């Protein structure tokens, strides 16, 4: 199972979503699909319709910045972060 860490700002949009969650996935896209299945709408908050990870969201896999097609190992750590943005 892949260990996913969600940012607090995303958790607040989906009441009940924990800071850390485990999903079965072979790619980042599949991991986000797993999140969306548990919290409908979460994919739209992380990804745009290109489809791509949103410009001001960063996803890291095992310490490396990742894209939707980045492969995951069974014990990968996937971290979703809100990037610097706003004013």
């Amino acid at each position: 199972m892949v260990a996913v860490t969600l940012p607090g700002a995303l958790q607040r949009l989906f009441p009940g979503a924990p800071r850390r969650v485990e999903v079965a996935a072979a790619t980042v896209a599949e991991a986000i699909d797993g999140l969306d299945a548990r919290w409908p709408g979460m994919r739209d908050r992380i990804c745009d319709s290109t489809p791509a990870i949103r410009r001001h969201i960063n996803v890291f896999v095992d310490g490396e910045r990742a894209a939707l097609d980045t492969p995951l190992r069974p014990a990968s750590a996937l971290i979703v972060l809100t990037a610097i943005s706003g004013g």
Partner: protein
Amino acid sequence: MATRVLVLLGTKKGAFILETDPDRRSWELRGPYCETWPMNHVIGDPATGAIYGAGGNEWFGPAVWRSTDLGATWSHSSAGLAYAAGEEPIKSVWSLAPGKGALYAGVQPAGLFRSDDAGETWRHLSGLRDHPTRPEWQAGGAGLILHSLVRDPGDDRKLWVAISAAGVFHSADGGETWEPRNRGTRADFNPEDQRYPEFGQCVHCLVMAPGMPDRLYQQNHCGMYRSDDGARTWQSIEAGLPSSFGFPAAAHPRDPGTLYLLPLNGDSAGRYVPDGKAAVWRTRDGGATWQDQRDGLPQKNVFFGVLRQAMATDPLDKAGVYFGTSTGAVYASRDEGDSWQCVAEHLPTVLSVETMVVEA
């Protein structure tokens, strides 16, 4: 049961609600809501009592928020609120309008969506996206935004939208097909021999007169206009106003001849209220004559602007009039604009003002 008067505010950092009773003398502020997202337009649907918020967040993208308990709790959705894969994604939702059982949303980049389940899911009305003039549309300062959504209350197939800076478009078939309706409105930013194009005008705000669905008013980047034929032709109504530039327009709830505007000092002069003095300008005769309303408004060293969706009226008798400023203040009139009071200040930049009166 008590009558509750709500003034719904979209701001750069969240939605807020000002609440009062029909006397409209004492106000309470609630918020911020919607996780402090930029909220371009917050509306109430008087048929259901629901409040909807249109916005977009740099991190999380566009969504329509909904509250069914007058703001106490909110949910959000953007299911279906997307263009096809590979196209430029939607950045933000800019405008909302309730219809008969429907909810319409205008987005950036400009397009129109419809929900038939109170904002849970959306479908694209692709006629605007596929319009043959679209490749020539140019974005305004805020982007290519569909900011005004007007529907005929007696005929749900008839819609008008305003897009900066593509102009006014009309649909007679519920949004499937569209035609530009800009005849008579200027585009001063074009070469001299191209000042009255078929489309491409920088319309800032479009509103419908009450009880007269063929009468529309618009505040344009280049003038103020009235149409009495469903936007087929437009007549200038800017004579008597201090400038031809401004953003908002607000129709009276019952009198089709009364309109409120808030002209600014010009597009290249700071876009403040003229002469550093705040005034709402009111016509009672469809724009033939104008009166400046200043009682209670600051008259010295005023350098705020008021954005396109940031002025509204309420349906009470006498009608209330409201506007929110770029400096985070909200002014209210309980007597159709004759006198004003500041009812909130120190808010984020106010992006939209709407009203809803409910029995609750």
